[in-house]
């Protein structure tokens, strides 16, 4: 039992009401005079009554006692008594509520985690002391402030109730940054209003309540600058563990037989128990094409102490996530491959697993594949034997131009509407500013765009770092590549460095304004320093993985050989929709049937961010082959729905409350009800005069 208002309120209320009541009773009762023929019998009756009634004095004061009790109960109710006040928040509370995909898990009681989280948040609001203010932030991959600091509990609860589930990933950084920013603003506002009196820094005193299932991708990277760790509380609402999800999927056309498709999917069991006879189904344009049955998937959930599961190392702030992810337990993942699937036209390919598990969003995965067609490739070169040869082996329609021809070519040759006619333009040692919307690969030169420069050649350096997970470098043995010289590149910070040399980047991917650039600092052929004759700059061209790299690059940039141009889009991830012709509006139809209309504003691409649910999104109008794009969860973090017992924030561990926050039931309505009942009883006694 605790009091939200405090004892003093009760004391004040009682002091204000009880003495007057008692005084009223002590005052002489004003009796009405009533003449009667004789008091003889009345006196006898009264005398008899007194003699025969024990506790007469008490009974005579019964009404007063009842009224006193009613007053005391009312005063008690004013104190806002609550039961089981485990923790009450004073001052400022920042509620952060996870609304990511894993919060859609339906727990045993039939409610989703988000619903439980909302209830918990409501309890936190209920448990606030009077005058305490709370802020509500809902976060998934983005964070939104649903309510700034407010003391109105009903409004806060309404905001909390309005939180909608998403199928996005969850990241905490933005939410924390928002909370810090708002708390700081509040301090400034207060100090201004306070007329020079500096208000206490709310952020340091603010209680942060994080309601999540513990599956937050960047939990170990989040470090709050302002909130004190001891003021942070994590309410973990996760219970259920069983989940099987598709964590990866890809479809690609057969290299030699473009009418056939190969579909690959990775299915992983995240649950505590094994899964048997799991049907994995392949749908082409919504029609069931093939089914494969996985006989057994081993349990994917292992005891936290024995394994470095994500978030399992509270003090692992400095350790990279890759190092901590030791991978799933053996047998818990299975790769499913559907081979030689005949799919001449383009369209949706869906892989579905048939299981009733905790999370539904990861039981289906989609990809959109284009109809087979050759990539239109424009090679702008003075002549490069090696590139020529390699490109001839690729299923591309190759057009050659010299740099002079390129610069002089009319728009009709190069353009299709505002965009480039070619899927990919490859420049060999030619730098240009003629770059309509499209995809460009520069060998030993740079696009003449802001922030990209190429300086003097660098010699005798080696590659020190590269991202072998990037699709362009897949199956490429970068460590075996030796390059004599390359130009010192200066690239904008948003560029992705695929290969780094000792002092400058060597291979850079840059996406800007609807254009993709792959910039290689070296060319395959370089002019000899002494003779000026072209000599081979690298022996890579003789190695087997050079064609692989070219294939990857063409596929990645032109993206006509494999899936749709977008690759996979994660829920909540914004994407750029290419605009065809002069369309002023683009309509996107979401998987749930809702449509969004985006104004193009004359641009050749429009951003679209309403990708919060998984499924296939349809765009009209857009460039051919871009009509549909798929949004898939593909997140081991979100699919791993099991409660994260060792969830921690940043380097400083913030222990999560293991249980759900206790119910803190307000007692005052019951106290008032009791008072009301007493008033009723008093009224009955007064009217019946049973005792008095």
């Amino acid at each position, binding site marked *: 039992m605790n009091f939200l208002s405090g004892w003093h309120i009760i004391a004040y209320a009682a002091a204000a009401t009880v003495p007057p009541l008692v005084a009223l009773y002590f005052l002489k009762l004003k009796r009405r005079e009533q003449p009667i*023929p*004789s008091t003889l*019998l009345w006196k006898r009756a009264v005398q008899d009554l007194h003699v025969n009634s024990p506790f007469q004095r008490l009974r005579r004061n019964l009404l007063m006692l009842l009224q006193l009790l009613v007053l005391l109960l009312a005063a008690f109710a004013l104190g806002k008594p609550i039961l089981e006040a485990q923790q009450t928040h004073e001052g400022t509370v920042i509620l952060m509520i996870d609304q990511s995909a894993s919060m859609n898990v339906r727990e045993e009681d039939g409610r989703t985690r988000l619903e439980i989280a909302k209830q918990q948040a409501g309890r936190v609001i209920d448990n606030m002391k009077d005058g305490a203010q709370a802020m509500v932030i809902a976060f998934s991959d983005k964070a939104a402030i649903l309510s700034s600091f407010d003391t109105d509990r009903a409004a806060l609860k309404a905001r909390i109730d309005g939180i909608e589930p998403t199928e996005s990933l969850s990241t905490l950084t933005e939410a924390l940054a928002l909370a810090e920013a708002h708390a700081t603003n509040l301090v400034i506002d207060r100090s201004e209003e306070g007329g020079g009196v500096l208000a206490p820094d709310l952020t340091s005193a603010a209680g942060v309540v994080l309601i999540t299932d513990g599956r937050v991708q960047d939990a170990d990277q989040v470090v709050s600058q302002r909130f004190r760790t001891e003021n942070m509380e994590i309410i973990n609402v996760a219970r259920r563990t069983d989940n099987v999800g598709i964590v990866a999927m890809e479809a690609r056309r057969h290299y030699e037989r473009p009418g056939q498709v190969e579909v690959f999917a990775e299915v992983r069991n995240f649950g505590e128990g094994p899964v048997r006879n799991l049907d994995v189904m392949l749908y082409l344009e919504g029609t069931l094409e093939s089914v494969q049955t996985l006989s057994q998937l081993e349990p994917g959930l292992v005891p936290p102490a024995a394994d470095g599961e994500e978030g399992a190392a509270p003090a692992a702030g400095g350790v990279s996530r890759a190092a901590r992810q030791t991978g799933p337990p053996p047998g818990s993942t299975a790769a499913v491959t559907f081979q030689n699937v005949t799919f001449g036209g383009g369209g949706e390919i869906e892989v579905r697993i048939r299981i009733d598990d905790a999370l539904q969003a990861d039981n289906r995965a989609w990809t959109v594949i284009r109809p087979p067609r050759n990539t239109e490739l424009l090679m702008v070169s003075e002549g490069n034997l090696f590139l020529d040869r390699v490109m001839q082996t690729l299923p591309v329609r190759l057009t050659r131009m010299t740099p002079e021809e390129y610069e002089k070519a009319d728009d009709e040759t190069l353009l299709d509407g505002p965009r480039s006619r070619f899927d990919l333009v490859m420049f060999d040692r030619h730098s240009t500013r003629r770059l309509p919307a499209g995809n460009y690969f520069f060998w030993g030169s740079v696009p003449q765009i802001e922030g990209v420069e190429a300086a003097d050649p660098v010699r005798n350096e080696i590659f020190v770092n590269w991202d072998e997970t990037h699709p362009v470098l897949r199956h490429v043995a970068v460590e075996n590549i030796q390059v004599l010289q390359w130009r010192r590149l200066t690239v904008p910070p948003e560029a992705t460095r695929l290969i780094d040399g000792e002092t400058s980047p060597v291979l850079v991917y840059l996406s800007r304004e609807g254009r993709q650039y792959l910039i290689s600092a070296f060319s395959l052929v370089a002019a000899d320093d002494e003779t000026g004759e072209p000599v081979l700059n690298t022996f890579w061209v003789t190695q087997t993985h050079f064609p692989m790299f070219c294939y990857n690059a063409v596929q990645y940039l032109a993206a006509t050989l494999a899936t749709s141009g977008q690759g996979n889009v994660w829920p909540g991830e914004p994407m750029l929709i290419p605009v065809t012709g002069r369309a002023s509006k683009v309509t996107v139809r979401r998987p749930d049937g809702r449509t969004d209309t985006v104004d193009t504003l004359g641009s050749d691409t429009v951003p679209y961010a309403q990708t919060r649910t998984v499924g296939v999104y349809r765009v009209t109008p857009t460039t051919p082959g871009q009509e549909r794009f798929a949004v898939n969860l593909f997140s081991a973090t979100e699919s791993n729905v099991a409660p994260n017992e060792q969830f921690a924030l940043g380097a400083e561990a913030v222990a999560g409350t293991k249980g759900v926050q206790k119910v803190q039931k307000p007692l005052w309505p019951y106290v008032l009800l009791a008072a009301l009942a007493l008033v009723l009883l008093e009224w009955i006694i007064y009217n019946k*005069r*049973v005792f008095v």
Partner: protein
Amino acid sequence: MATAVEKKDDDLLDPGFLSRIEQLEIVSRKIFAGKMRGERRSKRKGESVEFADYRNYVVGDDLRFLDWNIYARLDRLFLKLFLEEEDLHVSLLIDASRSMDWGSPAKLKYAKQIAAALAYIGLSNYDRVSLYGYANGLVAEMAGLRGKRLMARAVDFLRNLPGEGVSNLAAACKQYAVRHPQPGVLLVISDFLEKGGFEQGLRYLLGRNLDLYCVQVLSPDEVNPQLAGDLRLVDVEDDDVAEITVSQALLHRYRQTLRAFCESLREYCTRRGVAYLFTSTDVGFDQVILSYLRQRGLLR
């Protein structure tokens, strides 16, 4: 006579009622049993008298009572003796204290109505009717009325009898016993709510060879009080105060007390051969006359 009464006081008795009670007579149960009954009956029949005995004529006797037939046969003067015309004394002792002047209708008026009716019956039968009003002792008296023509006076007396003063039955009975030694029928009409107790007063009457009737008159408000709230009850007679807070329990207790009180009076009377009659003012007084008192044997 009846019309005169009706004109003078239609408050107390109405002519229809009078005509109904004219046929009634007051009966004494014990005093003149077997002695006066015949005569009183013969008196009602007019001139014929009941023969009792003969005695020798002495000078001075009323010649009208000589038996001329015997004189013709025997040539001697005999005087026919008839039963002496001793009339029945009917006394009505009416409580005229202030407590009787209460209720609707007032108990006193109710008592007066009963008294008037009985007086009329008595006067119609040439009984000797005496009316007494008492409070703290006898306060009014009209004794020895006889004959219907005096009914108007009786009614006047009753109408002018005020309800005031403190009731003292004992003093009244004592005075009555001293002033009125003759046997007869005595009706005490009162509420008997005597602070000093009714026993003392009745005791003065018990040894007087009286055919005693106690008629207790209460108002419905006394039987079932319609009171509520915190009250300061003031006795209208002596300004005595009782502070009460009316409750169901108290009302219940009051009714119990009242019942016990009436029962004690009834038992006191029964044990001593006194006829007791309880009535409430919501019972019509004609019903009391025509039904209750006849049942008790006072009227025939």
